[in-house]
């Protein structure tokens, strides 16, 4: 294969984005690690430098692992980590349960319908995320739209308490992240070889068994990719638990925000970020693995 174009600019094409992301994406993680090992002080910026010159030429290095110990010992922080894991896992599951039939229906729709139907999935993603979460406050609150409607139908005789409960957080997450599961699921389902299903049907295989033994296993890369696209960012979600959740909804992203903005404890916020980062490595590797496979399939 011939190498076209810009063979001479090769260094620049690779170097410029590499340098930018290295500086603004990779390098900052080292600072998170560094600050997480420092001690908080009342100053600007509010932490002690790890390496300090004590006297002329005499340098002292002090590492403070107290933040990590605190994260492990204090039930508040442990609770936030496990709370985030639980909320992310359950909402990922619900996203998949709702997103799978939608992706399937779009993939099996007449071909000239597919693009408009997909556009309708993506369109909300382009409008403000913050405002879409805010819309649920008006719907879910005590005298909100949903309660008014249910009271009017006579299904309930007292307003349900939904806003500021975990249920509201789940609704908000599934609502905001639904497009992220539908798109990769659609991509795998639309490429599915339909002759396999026909062959199975000809041999007397029932539809639900066709689905379980052919469609579902073949769409597993889409399920994993879509699931990870929800699970990973939700682990650090701040806006949804803050606006829709109550004081009992502990999530690590919200806690980080409080430590940073309210308590001005940058070292503790940094150690929370470092822990979150480590937890997310496994799902991220899983996501990369399946993306690479689909890249190879496409090539």
């Amino acid at each position, binding site marked *: 294969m011939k190498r076209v174009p810009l063979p001479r600019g090769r260094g620049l094409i690779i170097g410029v984005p590499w340098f*930018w992301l290295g500086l*603004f994406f990779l390098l900052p993680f080292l600072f998170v690690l560094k600050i997480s090992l420092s001690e908080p002080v009342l100053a600007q910026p509010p932490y002690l430098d790890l390496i300090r010159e004590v006297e002329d030429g005499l340098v002292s290095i002090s590492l403070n692992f107290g933040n990590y110990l605190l994260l492990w010992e204090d039930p508040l922080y442990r609770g936030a980590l496990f709370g985030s894991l639980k909320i992310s896992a359950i909402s990922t599951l619900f996203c998949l349960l709702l997103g799978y039939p939608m992706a399937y229906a779009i993939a*099996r729709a007449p071909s000239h319908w597919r693009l408009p139907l997909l556009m309708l999935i993506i369109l909300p993603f382009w409008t403000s995320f913050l405002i879409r979460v805010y819309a649920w406050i008006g719907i879910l609150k005590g005298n909100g739209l949903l309660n008014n409607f249910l009271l009017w139908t006579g299904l309930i005789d007292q307003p349900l308490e939904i806003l500021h409960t975990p249920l509201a957080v789940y609704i908000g997450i599934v609502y905001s992240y639904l497009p992220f599961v539908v798109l990769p699921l659609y991509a795998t389902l639309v490429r599915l070889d339909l002759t396999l299903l026909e062959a199975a049907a000809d041999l007397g295989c029932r539809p639900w068994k066709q689905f379980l033994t052919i469609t579902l296993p073949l769409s597993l890369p889409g399920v994993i990719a879509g699931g990870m696209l929800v699970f990973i960012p939700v682990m650090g979600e701040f806006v949804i638990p803050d606006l829709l959740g109550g004081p009992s909804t502990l999530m690590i992203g919200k806690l980080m925000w409080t430590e940073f903005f309210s308590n001005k404890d940058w070292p503790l916020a940094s150690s929370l970020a470092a822990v*979150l980062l480590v937890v997310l490595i496994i799902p991220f590797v899983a996501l990369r693995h399946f993306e690479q496979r689909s890249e190879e399939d496409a090539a």
Partner: protein
Amino acid sequence: MKRRFPVLMTALMFGYAFLYGPILSLIVYSFNESRLVTVWAGFSTKWYGELLHNQQLLDAAWLSVKVASMTASLAVVLGTLAALALVRFRRFRGRATLQVMVTAPLVMPEVIIGLSLLLLFVAMQDSIGWPDGRGQLTITLAHTTFAMAYVTVIVQSRLAHMDRSLEEAALDLGARPLKVFFTITLPLIAPALMAGWLLAFTLSLDDLVVASFVSGPGATTLPMVVYSSVRLGVSPEINALATIIVLLVSLAVAIAGVLLYRQEKRAQSEQNQG
């Protein structure tokens, strides 16, 4: 297959209702006379008028638009370079790292991006004196970093599916690589660049978390104003603002959709003729 369609159709309809119901409720109640958002008190456009007199909100919107257009333009340049590097050069040192660095920002929780960039900016200011203070510049740098990842994905897929024969023909006829890039490659990937620019623009315009971390006193973006007002409860002014945003976005997406559709038709008919 046919028998399952009613079930699927119901799921699809339910899904779309779920996605669009809340947005519709915002639009309807933005025309509500009453400040109590859930009580309908007659049609009114007064909240739109109040929006126009909210100086704090207008200033924030202007800052956000400035940051978003700078971000989008920078992100398109950087994202296109990253996509070219990844698609055109199959082997180079650091390729795997670059691949990870353009994928990770897509899923990385915003609180981590925001905090880590803030710590970087503080350290940089300490050691080299740049960026001096935090505000428009630091927000733009931060937004560009995650927006360029989205641009890379869009341009990457366009480049991967592009027909290379035109470029090769031009090179065989002696055109310089740089000229080939600007006269052939760039026009061919233009729709992807436009989609990338628009996506980067809306991502930047929408970001609350990263901007809150890396912003300084005096630089308040639109989402930051919306957030502080939303925390106090439902407000019809925010409903009006939401309606305007939804309308603008739908318009932009519709125009982009029509342009893409026409281009595809043209490409198809050219293929049929050739």
